[in-house]
């Protein structure tokens, strides 16, 4: 039995892009067949199929190339999935097959092929392109006639030198031609008609078959044409011409066994299976951006360190308390690291002074007096539609900001909401504009073992502190002699205070209330805070990343406890400070009291910040300061690294 290598269509992304473009701008709803062209490589080795390849330039004929053979075909692009399905039913496929087979049979019976051998091969692609979802389905048909029936093949060694054939092919690009054995010369295929003995000529077919013992399907129609032209012949000799490794094949068939009536079209085959493609990643702008963002991060990973754990950013939930200049910059920084879940808490509104300083608000937001949290969320989504951003208009309860009885119900709700938010996130950034607003979140983050990073700026100074993880008492047994202070032992924003946070805005004049700082400062501080988080997350165990300036401690380098910067000298220091037992925010006694009394404890503190000092015993400490000489041993409480 003779075998013929079947085709497989290989498309590429640029092909579909061109289809998108033409469908939208040129073809629109026109479903008539569109001419397309494929260049079949004669150099292919690495495949089980003849490759029908299509790319962006398949919509116009090629100039021809000596290592390829061109075939032309049609693309029928249906407007709906339903009409594609209707065209792909068994019945419709058979009809189309019959139509195409008839065309080729006509070319054979009218002998047109002797002048235009290209017409012996063609292909048809039926397809549907969903240009909203960028899903594609298609099916290719390359007709090959079953004529003569059941041919046999033999593969003798090449009886001529392939290079002279290739030279002729390069010059003429004739897909089918003859080689005369007597004159040892290539001839046009038209000379076949006058041949008497099939063994006087070789029929040379440019063949994309990669198989060293079988010709491709293109050869099949040529054999059909030869058998029809010379109905007395019972064999022919074909050269399957390739750029290298051409083979000679003798096809034979029972003579006259197939004396088909001229008007009966032989059977035909050649449908490939259905294929579909989802190219939303390539063409859907939203997904393209997502992919581009991810790929950019993958490249960082790939270049910098293959062990970089990007999923620690992409799965992270970050809560930003304060959607002001720092909060906005923090969000932008972590978003670029791949963080997808960002929540803001803020109770204030965009004012006219904000947009020039805050990277997520505009003039219009100020004019409309929109909420800062809401504005930041919308801007993030505008920048990167795939981000999951949430805004909460919520007032963080603050010590010293006294509360009326009638507002207690609201306070209870606020405390619960804030606690739920902190519980439901992995990281809390404290970027609120006052000292006392950071108090309650610090208490809660410590109780719920969250990564909490405080970022604060003055006029030309900044401080970034990562708070100790969890409760102090849970970690005291850890090795404290180590140079690096364990994460659980790090001080919080309040640890070095010996007074409780009070209402820092009540006695101030307006210009003192308003945070004035050098305008680059927030970007600097936010940038460092983002990178501190980025580094912590690359520690083998992020919640146990000790304060350390050793740049081998994480894949991204050092993880300091504090970063304090002084812009007037462009100077920065990185102190590590241990937790203070009696701290008014992260102290164990405070945690204990909050866990017992909840919002009522918060109420008491709001009404009297002194309450904090009583709970922690800080008041006693203050009283004793006068009497006792406290030995502040630097080596014990402050480790400078």
């Amino acid at each position, binding site marked *: 039995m003779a075998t013929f290598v079947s085709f497989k269509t290989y498309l590429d*992304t640029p092909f579909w892009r061109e289809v998108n473009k033409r469908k939208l701008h040129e073809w629109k709803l026109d479903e008539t067949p569109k001419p397309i062209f494929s260049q079949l490589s004669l150099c292919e080795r690495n495949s089980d199929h003849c490759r029908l390849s299509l*790319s962006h330039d398949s919509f116009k004929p090629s100039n021809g190339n000596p290592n390829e053979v061109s075939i032309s075909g049609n693309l029928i692009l249906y407007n709906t999935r339903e009409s594609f399905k209707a065209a792909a039913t068994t019945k419709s496929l058979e009809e189309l097959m019959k139509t195409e087979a008839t065309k080729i049979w006509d070319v054979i019976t009218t002998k047109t092929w002797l002048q235009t051998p290209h017409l012996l091969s063609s292909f048809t692609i039926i397809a549907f392109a969903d240009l909203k979802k960028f899903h594609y389905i298609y099916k290719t048909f390359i007709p090959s006639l079953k004529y003569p029936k059941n041919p046999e093949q033999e593969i003798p060694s090449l009886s001529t030198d392939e290079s002279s054939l290739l030279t002729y092919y390069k010059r003429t690009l004739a897909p089918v031609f003859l080689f005369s054995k007597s004159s040892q010369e290539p001839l046009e295929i038209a000379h076949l008609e006058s041949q008497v003995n099939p063994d006087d000529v070789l029929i040379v077919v440019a063949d994309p078959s990669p198989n060293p013992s079988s010709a491709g399907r293109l050869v099949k129609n040529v054999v059909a044409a030869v058998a029809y032209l010379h109905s007395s012949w019972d064999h022919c000799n074909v050269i399957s011409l390739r750029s290298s490794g051409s083979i000679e094949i003798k096809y034979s068939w029972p003579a006259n066994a197939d004396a088909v009536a001229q008007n009966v079209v032989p059977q035909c085959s050649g449908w490939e299976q259905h294929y579909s493609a989802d190219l939303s990643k390539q063409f859907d702008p939203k997904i393209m951006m997502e992919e581009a963002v991810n790929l950019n991060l993958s*490249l960082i990973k790939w270049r910098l360190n293959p062990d970089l754990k990007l999923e620690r950013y992409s799965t992270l939930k970050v809560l930003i308390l304060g959607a002001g200049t720092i909060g906005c910059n923090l969000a932008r920084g972590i978003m670029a690291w791949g963080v997808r879940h960002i929540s803001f808490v803020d109770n204030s509104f965009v004012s006219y002074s904000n947009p020039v300083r805050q990277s997520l608000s505009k003039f219009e937001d100020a004019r409309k007096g929109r909420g800062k949290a809401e504005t930041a969320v919308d801007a993030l989504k505008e920048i990167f539609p795939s981000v999951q951003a949430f805004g909460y208009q919520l007032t963080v309860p603050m010590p010293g900001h006294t509360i009326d009885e009638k507002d207690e119900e609201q306070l209870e709700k606020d405390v619960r909401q804030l606690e739920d938010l902190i519980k439901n996130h992995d990281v809390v950034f404290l970027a609120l504009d006052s000292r006392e607003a950071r108090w309650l979140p610090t208490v809660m983050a410590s109780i719920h073992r969250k990564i909490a990073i405080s970022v604060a700026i003055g006029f030309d100074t900044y401080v970034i502190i990562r708070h100790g993880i969890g409760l102090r008492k849970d970690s005291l047994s850890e090795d404290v002699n180590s140079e690096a202070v364990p994460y659980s032992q790090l001080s919080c924003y309040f640890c070095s205070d010996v007074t409780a946070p009070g209402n820092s805005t009540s006695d101030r004049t307006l210009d003192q209330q308003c945070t004035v700082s050098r305008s680059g400062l927030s970007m600097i501080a936010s940038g460092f805070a983002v990178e501190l988080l980025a580094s912590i997350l690359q520690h083998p165990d992020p919640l146990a990343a000790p304060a350390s300036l050793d740049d081998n401690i994480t894949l991204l380098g050092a993880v300091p406890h504090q970063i304090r910067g002084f812009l007037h000298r462009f100077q920065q220091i990185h102190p590590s400070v241990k937790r203070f037992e009696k701290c008014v925010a992260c102290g164990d006694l405070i945690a204990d009291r909050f866990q017992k009394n909840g919002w009522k404890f918060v109420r008491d503190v709001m009404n009297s910040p002194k309450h904090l000092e009583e709970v922690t015993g800080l008041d006693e400490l203050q009283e004793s300061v006068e009497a006792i000489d406290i030995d502040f041993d630097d080596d014990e409480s402050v480790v400078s690294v």
Partner: protein
Amino acid sequence: MLSEQKFREELQKFVEQMSQNKWNWQLKENGKYARETHLETLSSGKIVSADIHILYNSTYQVPTLWFNFFENNGAPIPFEEVVRDILKIPESEESDSSLRQRISHYEHPILGVLYYNIHPCNTEKIMKELKTDSYLISWLSVYGQQLGLRLPDSLKVH
């Protein structure tokens, strides 16, 4: 460095030379770039088509390699497969591998679809170290190697 005109001349020469050696490189867009495509088998056994282009980079004034790999339905294969099966860079390899440092993913300047390219910032330095008859053949013997593009034996640069 190579002027654009010189690049085009070299490209034409290159394509002819490759064609004689049974390599199916073709000039595209009036000689603006050259393209080669062939099938490649991945470690999973999947056969994909490789699409490789030589374009001129006018900033660095050197040729650049742009490439991508597609499944038969037109979808590009994932980056991880490109790294593992095509570039064959082991996961554990040191991060200073020159290819690792220089590979990027950008919109193809002519096709408008994302393709990989190898950044040309080092090309000039490398080319200075090579004695060349044909600039592009020497260049491809360095850059094409990373894509598994072996040059015909008769054109090997020694």
